[in-house]
């Protein structure tokens, strides 16, 4: 396959997200400007100007009309996808790290970093259909986990919130009461910071990637550890194929040691693993730095990776990929 290279960002990529139809790709980077691309040919459709800090995460509504972004400028912004207009700004007292829209696009979970003595927190906000009626108030605020919460997503039917972060523990919270329901086991769980979390397309399980050089597959309801994928470098990004039993892990060495080594030694590949057999299938090379973001197109025929090198690489699979048999 010949990947399409998109050099729209001047700083490292942080997050990639496809809309539900898989025709738009949203990219977030540390350069303040989230960008939307056509996912088939990589053409840039537009940019969302307004943030004043690194943009860490985004999510797009099911109808592809609203985009929400979380930024280090202590805000989360709601955008009109088509026009690029800013609709609303949620203000926080610390940098916003992750954002996830619940089923129905009525609720959003936003996590904020520990900052100036404030602990990290998970905020649940209501999104109103009409942006003029949008309020800044939190429906629920959860505090407790130590360190940064790198990702929080909704569980099935918006009943739970799953969070993971620097304390290496995956937690499931009740989204109504904010009570801690389940916590991953210290023995079987990750040993270092969890950097990424991705739900399967059917929402029955999710994958976490960690700096302890492994990725783990969990049941979304019982938080039972299903599989562990071991690799030889820290995992920064994970994604799951919606059509095949494949998981993709992206990572690489620390940014600080990148320049001191040959890029071939850096292992900046997107590694494909078989979801069930936990066996490595292969790797897709190309980035000149660690992979920070991965996303699979909902049709399963392409995936994109975003690296520390500022490039988004869009890969459309050859027929060979679908013929792989194990």
């Amino acid at each position: 396959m010949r990947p399409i290279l998109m050099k729209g960002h001047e700083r490292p990529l942080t997050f990639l997200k496809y809309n539900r139809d898989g025709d738009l790709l949203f990219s977030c980077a540390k350069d303040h400007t989230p960008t939307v691309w056509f996912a088939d040919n990589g053409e840039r459709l537009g940019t969302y100007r307004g943030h004043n800090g690194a943009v860490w995460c985004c999510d797009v509504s099911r109808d592809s009309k609203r985009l929400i972004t979380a930024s280090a400028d202590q805000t989360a912004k709601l955008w009109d996808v088509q026009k690029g207009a800013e609709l609303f700004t949620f203000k926080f007292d610390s940098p916003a790290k992750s954002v996830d829209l619940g089923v129905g696009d009525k609720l959003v979970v936003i996590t904020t970093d520990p900052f100036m003595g404030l602990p990290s927190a998970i905020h649940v906000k209501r999104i109103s259909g009409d942006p003029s009626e949008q309020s800044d108030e939190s429906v629920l605020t959860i505090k407790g986990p130590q360190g940064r919460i790198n990702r929080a997503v909704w569980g099935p039917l918006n009943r739970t919130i799953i969070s993971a972060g620097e304390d290496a523990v995956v937690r499931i919270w009740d989204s109504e009461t904010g009570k801690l329901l389940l916590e991953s086991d210290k023995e079987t769980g990750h040993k270092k910071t969890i950097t990424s979390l991705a739900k399967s397309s059917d929402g029955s399980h999710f994958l976490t990637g960690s700096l302890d050089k492994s990725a783990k597959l969990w049941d979304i309801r019982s938080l039972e550890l299903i599989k562990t994928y071991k690799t030889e470098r820290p995992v920064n990004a994970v994604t799951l194929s919606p059509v095949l039993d494949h998981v993709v892990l992206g990572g690489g060495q620390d940014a600080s040691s990148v320049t001191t080594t040959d890029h071939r030694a850096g292992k900046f590949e997107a590694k494909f693993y078989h979801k069930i057999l936990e066996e490595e299938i292969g790797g897709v090379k190309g980035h000149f730095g660690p992979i920070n973001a991965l996303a699979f197109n909902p049709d399963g025929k392409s995936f994109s990776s975003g690296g520390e090198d500022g490039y988004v690489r869009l890969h459309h699979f050859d027929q060979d990929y679908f013929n792989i048999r194990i």
Partner: protein
Amino acid sequence: MAITMVANPSNQAAKPRWADVDDDNDDYLLPPRKVIGPDANGIKKVIEYKLNHENKLVRVSKTYRVRKFVTNARKHVVERRAWRKFGDAVDEDVGVRLTMTSVEDVFLDRHMPYGSKGEEPKKSQSSQNEEGSGVLQVCRNCGRKGDHWTARCPYKDLNQPNESFPDTSDVTSVKDVKKGAYVPPSRRGGEKSKGSDMRRGTEENSVRVTNLSEDTREADLNELCSTFGPVTRTYVSNDQRTGTCRGFGFVNFVNRADAEKAIKVLNGYGYDNLILHVEWAAPRTK
């Protein structure tokens, strides 16, 4: 004199050039353009005739493959396709330069064949101890083992001419050569000159396997042949359209003895309800 010289060019410009007229007149003499197909496989042939610069009739036949792609685009997706650019993307010129298609092909590297799971390198090491370095990494260019891959061979340019005339056995050992005497690049360094021999050796260790079943993959052939000894390359010819095996493949062994053994055992071996035919691969035509 001067006046006629000026007049001449103006005359030419007014009249159509004789060459153009001729070309036009010739057109109806040419056989008509013929289009055949597209047939069931989507192959379309177009046969055209034209005169070349020597005024000779040339037949130009072009073969096309016509393929139809049906995509079911959703209504919203089509609508979004027509959206106006916004933000920084309004400046169209910039946007075009931002997106480019990689010139190099990237593949899903499957460096671990199935069933081998990483214990293979160790196995080959033990069977290869007499070779010293004992690794699978054999440079097909200069024959060095364990130093570099063929693509990264530092002696690539030096050894190229060798390909055209196979070296005879009069390889003079470098030790005999006096200091200062001219040594051709291909002879420089004792190991290298030996290497060019070894290179031919590894090329000859290529084994052709035919009568493979349709769903044979490279990993299968590797699994089958690696039992005889370390394998540097396995190749299974695949049909581009269907992705199925075309029935033959090649295996390169590190050691000639292993290749011999493989031929002896595998020729006539039943594999996937077909009887394999295994033989030495024909040497590359020089």
